[in-house]
């Protein structure tokens, strides 16, 4: 066994996995509270990557940043997260809220429309070409190693900040008042509203947090892989969703676990399965199908009981 290949794949799998986990969290939160698949989530992630790029260039660009590199990165994250969070709230307000009592298929079609709208707006406004983050110039190409395990700075940054965001989210949901309101709303929306919880506000803040996480994920992906384009959200959205299903949709620890598993699976498939670098997405798809057949409620999810 070639251990250095294994460790390389593990590190890149964990990096990808952190990105997917953040996307999956947004899916899972929205699904948990509205029982809605937000197809537009992947495109919010794409917009996040673009917002990070714009922030980077407003701050002087990667070669000549007008502030210290770490500050630039932090500002990129902040800008992308706030912009995406706002976008998420707007989407919820105009595409989903009017349909809250409509038949189930209506908001799904609306979500499809939003996704397509965002994708093609990005194509029209930002152009069809790839954009470069030039992370090397900004952060440098230094790598750290522990034995055989090599980690580049953006990878380290991605994994650490993803863990940080997840801890923050867990604390928010478990400890704060708004987190309590979210749990109550997702448990039973009607009862929550009778208890004096402003359900509209809770849902809007869920969208804000979920979309902000997607925006952060977009910036992370771009820092590690360097290039962004208007269609990048589509596949990331699918993988994020796969991660949410594998972990158990609606469960936050499940989304994190699922994200890491999908990232690792994709990475190992690239290295070890036949023609993995071509067919990695097909292998992830096969994994999704396998999970749906064997354990439809996901690894950490509870079986769905139909209520009338």
């Amino acid at each position, binding site marked *: 066994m070639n251990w250095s290949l294994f460790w390389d794949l593990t590190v890149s799998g964990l990096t990808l996995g952190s990105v997917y986990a953040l996307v999956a969290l947004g899916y899972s939160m929205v699904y948990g509270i509205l029982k809605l698949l937000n197809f537009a989530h992947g495109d919010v992630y794409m917009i996040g990557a673009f917002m990070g790029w714009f922030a980077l260039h407003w701050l002087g660009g990667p070669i000549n940043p007008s502030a210290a590199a770490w500050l630039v990165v932090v500002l990129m994250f902040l800008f992308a997260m706030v912009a995406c969070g706002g976008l998420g709230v707007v989407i919820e307000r105009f595409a989903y809220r009017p349909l809250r009592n409509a038949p189930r298929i209506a908001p799904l079609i609306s979500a*499809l429309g939003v996704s397509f709208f965002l994708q093609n707006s990005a194509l029209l406004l930002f152009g069809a070409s790839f954009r470069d983050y030039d992370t090397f110039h900004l952060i440098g190409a230094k790598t750290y190693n522990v034995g055989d395990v090599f980690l580049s700075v953006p990878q380290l940054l991605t994994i650490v900040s993803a863990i940080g965001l997840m801890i923050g989210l867990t604390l928010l949901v478990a400890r704060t008042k708004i987190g309590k309101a979210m749990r109550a709303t997702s448990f039973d929306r009607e009862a929550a509203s009778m208890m004096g919880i402003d359900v509209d506000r809770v849902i809007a803040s869920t969208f804000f947090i979920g979309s902000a996480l997607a925006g952060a994920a977009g910036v992370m992906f771009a820092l590690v892989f360097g290039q962004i384009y208007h269609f990048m959200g589509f596949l990331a959205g699918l993988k994020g969703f796969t991660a949410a299903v594998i972990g158990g949709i609606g469960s936050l620890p499940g989304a994190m676990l699922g994200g890491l598993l999908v990232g690792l699976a994709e990475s190992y498939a690239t290295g070890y399965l036949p023609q993995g670098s071509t067919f990695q997405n097909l292998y992830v798809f096969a994994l999704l199908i396998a999970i749906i057949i064997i354990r439809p409620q996901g690894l950490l999810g509870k079986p769905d009981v139909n209520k009338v």
Partner: protein
Amino acid sequence: MADDVTQPRIGVDEWVSSVEEKRERYRGPIGWLRRGWDSSPPAARLLVFVVPAVIFPFVTSEGNLFRYGLITLLYALLGLGLNVTVGFAGLLDLGYIAFFGIGAYTYGYVASTHANHHWPAELAIPLAIAVAGLVGFIVGFPSRRLVGDYLAIVTLFFGQAFVVFVNNADRINFWPFNHTDLTGGANGLDNIDPLNVFGWKVNTTKEYYLFTLGAFLLVMILLYFVSGSRTGRAWKALREDPLAAEVMSMPVNKLKLMAFTFGAGIAGFAGAIYGSVQTGAFPGDYDIGLLITIYAIVILGGAGSLAGVIVGALIVNGVPELLRDSNQAEWVFYTVVAILVITKVRPWQKLVTVIGGTIALGFALHAIADAWFPRWTAGEANAGRLAHWVSHWMVLPSHPTQLANWAYVLTIALILVLTLLHGWWRTIVMIPTIYVGAFAWENLLVENTVGATRFLLLGALLVVLMNARPQGLFGSARVEIV
């Protein structure tokens, strides 16, 4: 509240009263047409469509027949299949275009120089339908027990997997493919034979048009009977309430799979025809852009309505083609906006505000731009008859493309906002909406009605329809019984 006329009378079925109410609401010539349509027999309704469709190829040019006729028919045929899955059974199938592609590739594989098979169409088309249906069955199988959402995402992923597969299936080096060239990879299959049905060689556009028309009518009539059959009624029950359907001892899983497979088969049929029309099957044709187009057709026409599919296909495919000529496009735009505003904005105070406000806003902005930013008015107006008027009202920058792109996106966003506002807010927001829309139209859309702008519009259309009229143009509104 016994005196409230908006409430149904006590003892009267809510549904009956709502239908009565609707009948009464149609007045004038539109009401007359509507009642005539509702009461005419289905065969007569079909004639309304068939007669112009048969005459059309004999009065138009080859190019127009292809763009307006053949493509619209193919879209409509695809729409019929999607109508079974989404409209009848209420399953959100987002991998639908993959089945279309499977049909085209299957037909191409057995009837082209690629593998040197040259099957006649009467064998190749049923094979394409069967393969597409079978794959549909396999894809639908894991989702059979699950809620519609899982099906949606599994099929969406499947559509993407299909594109990856056909792009690379010429060089798979492991079992069971072992280097067989299945799909021609990124170059696709070319040299697909023209259709050869029982010795009738279909060659010209006109012949293809007539063949597709025949295929369309066949499927349409089939679906008409299926829709009223035991299975068709069961599908609709499933769509309205899966849980209730299950409690009524309907075999829900079997019905779902049937609807899914049925839709996939129709897509395969359309795919086989499309492959031979194009004399090729290329991976890029079976992408999400086409998916959204077909969804827009079905949703706009009204999910579950057969007539709606035809109207939807005519609008979604026909209107952008009509607008290619910039002179026509200008007239169409201002006429449509004027008619919409005049018929929809009540009372007259608001109407005057909208029209006056829009005109004043235009002249004011033009004057400001003229005085301080001459570059903004340096552009040329389009060479229509309205150009003289427009050039004093509209800001026409010299390099408009990027700005017009922003204006376009802004227009659609504003329209989305409009659908949710009421009262005077709506009136006030309408003014900049019309102006920004006209700006985008003058500077961008007239030249560019394909690609991103078109898809953007379709995406927004879905959102607006879901908000404003989920039943589409021809569908029947859902009866809510609480």
